């Protein structure tokens, strides 16, 4: 009986030892989102892991997955300047984000987000051209730019949600892709107005 108890205790100790050892050998969980496949740094700074952790909450692909995310860092008076360029398979255009990292917080200072799947890009152009004011103002048959507008910017013009900006030279339509409608029209030299 005493031998059996010893064997059982021994087994428990072995299992616990293996378990603890296995858990210690594991790395920290990878916080990189599943929609981000490859991350490349140029001039990787100290504390890059912390920066990445903050970055992953700020980068937001639009109906795509980021194939590569290139991060370049440069020192500036206000902190570390970060330029993030993200590419995707479904579009030949990029998403560009500018950040400043002061050692604690990450501040988005600018963005140019054009990585929009072909289908949604064309859909936005179609919606814009369905607006008579826009259609009548388009001055050439050239393709417009289609850019994503983040909610923090959108709320000043419509509502705090992702919108798309379809812009020809001097004419732009702000599109609500969920409601499939033009919510603002801008013409160079004139004040913007509702559709």
């Amino acid at each position, binding site marked *: 009986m005493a031998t059996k108890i010893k064997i059982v205790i021994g087994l428990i100790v072995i299992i616990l030892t293996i378990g603890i050892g296995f858990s210690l050998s594991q790395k920290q969980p990878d916080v990189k989102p599943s929609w981000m496949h490859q991350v490349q740094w140029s001039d990787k700074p100290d504390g890059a892991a912390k920066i990445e952790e903050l970055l992953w909450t700020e980068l937001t692909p639009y109906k795509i997955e980021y194939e590569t995310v290139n991060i370049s860092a440069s020192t500036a008076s206000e902190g570390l300047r970060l330029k993030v360029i993200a590419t995707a398979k479904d579009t030949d255009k990029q998403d560009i984000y500018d950040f400043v990292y002061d050692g604690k917080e990450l501040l988005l*200072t600018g963005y*140019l987000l054009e990585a929009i799947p072909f289908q949604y890009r064309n859909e936005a152009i179609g919606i814009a051209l369905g607006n008579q004011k826009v259609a009548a103002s388009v001055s050439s048959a050239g*393709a417009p730019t289609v850019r994503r507008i*983040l909610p923090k910017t959108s709320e*000043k013009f419509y509502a705090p949600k992702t919108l798309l900006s379809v812009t020809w030279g001097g004419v*732009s339509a702000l599109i609500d892709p969920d*409601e499939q409608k033009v919510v603002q029209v801008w013409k160079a030299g004139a004040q913007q107005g509702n559709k």
Partner: protein
Amino acid sequence: MNKYASIVAAILVLGMFAGIEAGNIIPVQAQDTAVQGVSAPAPVTPAVAEQTGNFTKIDISPQYGNFRLQPGENKEITVTVRNKEKKAVNVKPNTVILPYGGYVVDPEWVTVTPGSTEIPAGGSQKFIIKASVPKDASIGNSGLQIAFTDEVMPTPYPQPIPNYIHAFQLSIDVWTPPKIQIMMPYINDQLEAGKEYNYDIKLKNTGDQAIGINPKLGSDMLYGGPYGMTAPALTEDSITITAPQRIQAGATETVKLHVKVPSDAKGYYNGYIDLEIDDPSIRDWEGRVQLSFNIWKQPTENFIKNFSLKESVPITIEISSNNYYGYPPINGQGTNAKVPSFDTSLEGPGGKAPLNVTKTVIKGNVNMGGDRPPWEIDSASIYQEMGIQYVVTYRTNGSPGEWKLSVLPMNTQGFDYSITIGG
């Protein structure tokens, strides 16, 4: 000691829960008070504003609302009415339909709670406006007003719908998800006169029943080119549409578009294909594919420029394509925009001169904000390439006499030239 600590901790935890509960209750009570605090409907004083111009001082917040609902759905919004008068005001919301456009919302879809109330001087009252769309409602959108008093803006002539001063504007958009997805709702391309082009428009039926289609070229031209409403560069004869009559449930079908550009065509064509999808969830303007073609003709005759030299000096010729200022001529679907090039020759007193390309320059225009829509202000610090220009430089040795420069441009609708004598 540990026992006392446990008791204290338990009290603290209970206290926290009590606090949370109380926190939840307070706004509910306030809301209940607001909703239920309905006094007996008091007669609303007929407006005297028309005679006096003195309107009752009432604030309505918000003043506008927009509901996008599918049949069978409902939504509500709380509107606060504040009495800024020094006396109580009787308020009785009244739903007023605005019969503009073809679609009309049934007033019975909209309820306002409370139905009437007296707001004390300086007080406020919350009203809940709820719209319930019946399951059998057809799609469309319409506006209505909730007039809280019957005071109207005086007008010199009778109006079909009085302009209520104390009104909340509500837009109701009844929709259903479209069953046909148009994979290519926009075609923008650069076409060459005398050539033919094919485009595929894929349509996917996500519903559980076959849906009929009958694509036709839109009969009304949407807009002209850069010089206003000019005759379109293509006629209906130039565009042929081939399509199946229906798309089976779950299937993807292709509408084929063939464009035969007449050899004498030039300018712009902006129009649309009306797919005439037999799906009531798709509104007229949604079942369309926008067409935008820029038609140009490749010249066959050379551009000629004569000049003379008084002495033997080097001649430098620079030819540059149009700078597509604004936006590069990339296409929505087509890939017909090509890199500009030039067939250039130079003849002098001794015949055709050897013209060597000394350099080719690709010149860009990069914008960092500039004249952009205000919602793109956050891209102001990021480089944006706006247009590309191709510049070719040639050089030869010149001798006194008459010279002739010949240029045949390709894949560009214009070019600049410069002739540098000497240097």
